[in-house]
């Protein structure tokens, strides 16, 4: 059977499953639509949270970023998991005890201010919409590649599927759909990794294989996988895989931004409203991280092993021998993947010196320039290797069977679609529940609220699709903005709302606005205003940046400003009223948590 047919079968079967579940679990009442009637078990909820959380960025992109950078990009691994500790300890149980449906409802009630609620809604909508744009871009690329259709057609099909189950299913449909998506996603990620780990190290668990000795014994006996990798990449002039090359300040701030952003993203926090009890909210965060860790512990192994495989394919006779020839790439079956991906424009090579061989090396160092001159090389000939294709191409690179490739296609789409659906739900509840029912038309009926939630979803997905066709930047940049915004605006307000009785309405509003605006302006100064190229005032590098901090890491500083301003302003203005102090006290104690209170 052709690979195209296999991909189609896997993707088609997984979609039929998701849509089937969404129809089976159609939401009836408002309460079910938002929070699944709070009937979701912590383990189920953890699995759905994991699917919700792991997007195209985790599944498709992250291992590729680690593969080509090594240790420095460990920040993604720590940042995107460490946030769950903050969620579990600082937010989840208290927000569940509070017992309302949305994040902005908590902010509005705790800071007894419709303005605070409005500011929170704006932060949530902006962060979520930018995040969805990134996902839709990913959906388009993945669909385009595996169905062998154009990016535009792939994006439109993806948008229709997300619309179908998010709009008609609501949270309950999404919860069970996401459990199914998690299963598809994790199998798609780990099965090829197990195969590759067995090939390279003889260890079936990739996370352990990363630190094992290689299976094939060379002349000097068996060596550790990482030692071998360090050796061959440095031979070719690349930075060593395991050493640090980035400054500590940026690594720490970037990790912190991702952690705080995780604990400030509405679609993740909302998950903790859907468990039956406060104690379940505590367990839920743990279960979510268990399911996330299965992928995150595998990802560094996928990255290192793929880097080794790719480098060895380019230098089949060792780094001091003869590199692969153009003819071999074009004819040998183990190089077929290069021809397939070349068609997408994300992978390319060029025989610059016309010797019929492809020399892959780092042509930007002085030491390699000497080697190149001595050997008649005229620059790196593997001219383009997009980081984002690594995970999707990985099973092909390792020459795995066709069904594994089809499974990875389905997994990548599950990751992107599940996150898009969760974010759409967060946006729709912000618009219908907080903006319309909470502020503009308080007397609207439950039916009208449900309808407006669905309209908000349709509008959000239309906007995301249009912007996804002409994305404001790379998906990673868009995602970075979403994280920075959530970190700088939402998380500090939620945390202070629980841990301080003193922070008042004025303080919270000033804090959120200053954190949000500072972060937004700093990002725009480095990435261009509204991401329009060439409108940036500073280059987006560590050395050229305004404070020596990269724009992706600035969310952590924005959060600190938010904390500082909110507390300072609160001390200078009127103390919180007695009933708010009582509200904070009641949120801190699990006893008395009932069902959700709708108002």
């Amino acid at each position, binding site marked *: 059977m052709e690979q195209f047919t296999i991909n189609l079968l896997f993707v088609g079967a997984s979609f039929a499953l998701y849509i089937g579940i969404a129809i089976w679990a159609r939401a009836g009442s408002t309460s079910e639509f938002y929070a699944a009637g709070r009937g979701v078990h912590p383990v189920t909820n953890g699995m759905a949270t994991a699917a919700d959380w792991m997007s195209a960025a985790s599944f498709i992109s992250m291992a590729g970023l680690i593969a080509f950078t090594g240790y420095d990009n460990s920040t993604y691994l720590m940042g995107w998991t460490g946030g769950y*500790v903050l969620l579990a300890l*600082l937010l989840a149980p208290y927000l569940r005890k509070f017992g309302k449906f949305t994040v902005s409802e908590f902010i509005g009630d705790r800071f007894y201010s419709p303005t605070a609620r409005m500011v929170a809604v704006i932060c949530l909508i902006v962060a979520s919409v930018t995040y969805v744009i990134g996902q839709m871009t990913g959906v388009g690329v993945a669909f385009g590649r595996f169905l062998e259709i154009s990016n535009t057609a792939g994006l439109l099909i993806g948008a229709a599927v997300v619309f179908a189950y998010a709009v008609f299913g609501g949270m309950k449909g999404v919860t069970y759909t996401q459990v199914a998506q998690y299963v598809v996603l994790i199998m798609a990620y780990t099965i090829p990794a197990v195969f590759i780990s067995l090939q390279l190290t003889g260890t079936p668990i990739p996370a352990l294989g990363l630190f094992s000795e290689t299976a094939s014994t060379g002349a000097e006996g068996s060596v550790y996988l990482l030692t071998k990798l360090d050796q061959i990449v440095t031979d070719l002039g690349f930075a060593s895989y395991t050493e*640090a090359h980035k400054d500590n300040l940026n690594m720490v701030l970037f990790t912190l931004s991702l952690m705080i952003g995780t604990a400030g993203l509405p679609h993740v926090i909302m998950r903790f409203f859907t468990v039956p*009890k406060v*104690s379940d909210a505590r367990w839920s965060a743990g279960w979510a991280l268990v399911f996330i860790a299965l992928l995150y512990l595998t990802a560094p192994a996928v990255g290192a092993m793929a880097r080794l495989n790719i480098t060895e394919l380019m230098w089949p006779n060792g780094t001091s021998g003869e590199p692969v020839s153009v003819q071999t790439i074009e004819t040998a079956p183990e190089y077929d993947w290069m021809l397939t991906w070349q068609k997408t424009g994300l992978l390319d090579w060029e025989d610059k010196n016309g010797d019929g061989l492809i020399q892959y090396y780092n042509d930007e160092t002085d030491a390699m320039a000497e080697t190149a001159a001595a050997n008649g090389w005229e620059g790196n000939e593997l001219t383009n290797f997009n980081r984002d294709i690594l995970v999707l191409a990985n099973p092909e690179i390792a020459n795995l069977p066709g069904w594994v490739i089809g499974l990875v296609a389905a997994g990548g789409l599950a990751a992107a679609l599940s996150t898009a659906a969760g974010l759409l739900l967060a946006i729709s509840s912000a618009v219908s529940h907080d903006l319309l029912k909470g502020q503009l038309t308080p007397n609207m009926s439950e039916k009208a609220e449900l309808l407006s939630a669905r309209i908000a979803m349709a509008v959000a997905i239309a906007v995301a699709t249009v912007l996804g066709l002409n994305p404001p930047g790379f998906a990673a940049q868009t995602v970075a903005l979403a994280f920075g915004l959530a970190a700088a605006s939402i998380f500090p307000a939620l945390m202070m709302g629980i841990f301080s009785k003193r922070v008042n309405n004025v303080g919270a509003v000033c804090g959120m606005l200053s954190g949000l605006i500072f972060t937004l302006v700093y990002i725009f100064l480095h990435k261009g205003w509204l991401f329009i190229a060439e409108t940036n005032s500073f280059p987006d590098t560590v050395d050229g940046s305004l404070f020596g901090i990269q724009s992706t890491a600035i969310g952590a500083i924005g959060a600190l400003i938010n904390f500082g301003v909110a507390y300072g302003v609160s001390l200078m203005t009127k103390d919180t009223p007695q009933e708010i102090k009582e509200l904070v006290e009641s949120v*801190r104690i699990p*006893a008395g948590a009932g069902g959700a209170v709708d108002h």
Partner: protein
Amino acid sequence: MAEETTNARAAKAGADYWKANVRIILVSLVIWAVVSFGFGILLRPMLSGIAVGGTDLGFWFAQQGSILVFLALIFFYAWRMNKLDREYGVEED
């Protein structure tokens, strides 16, 4: 009069419960920061003498160790807090 004393006692128990909770959170967050920002990034040179599978302990903490510690922290906190809820009689029905 009797009712007021009961209320005061309940308020004090609530305050003690919260203080105990904050103490557990602080200890957990110190561990959280030490394994990630500490062992994984800032203190990595200190751990460079300890070899782990072709690299050093700091690399392992940055790519896997910190995640495992995060997991342990969350489950420890959930278990400890559910116990604390019962000690102070503030658990849900």
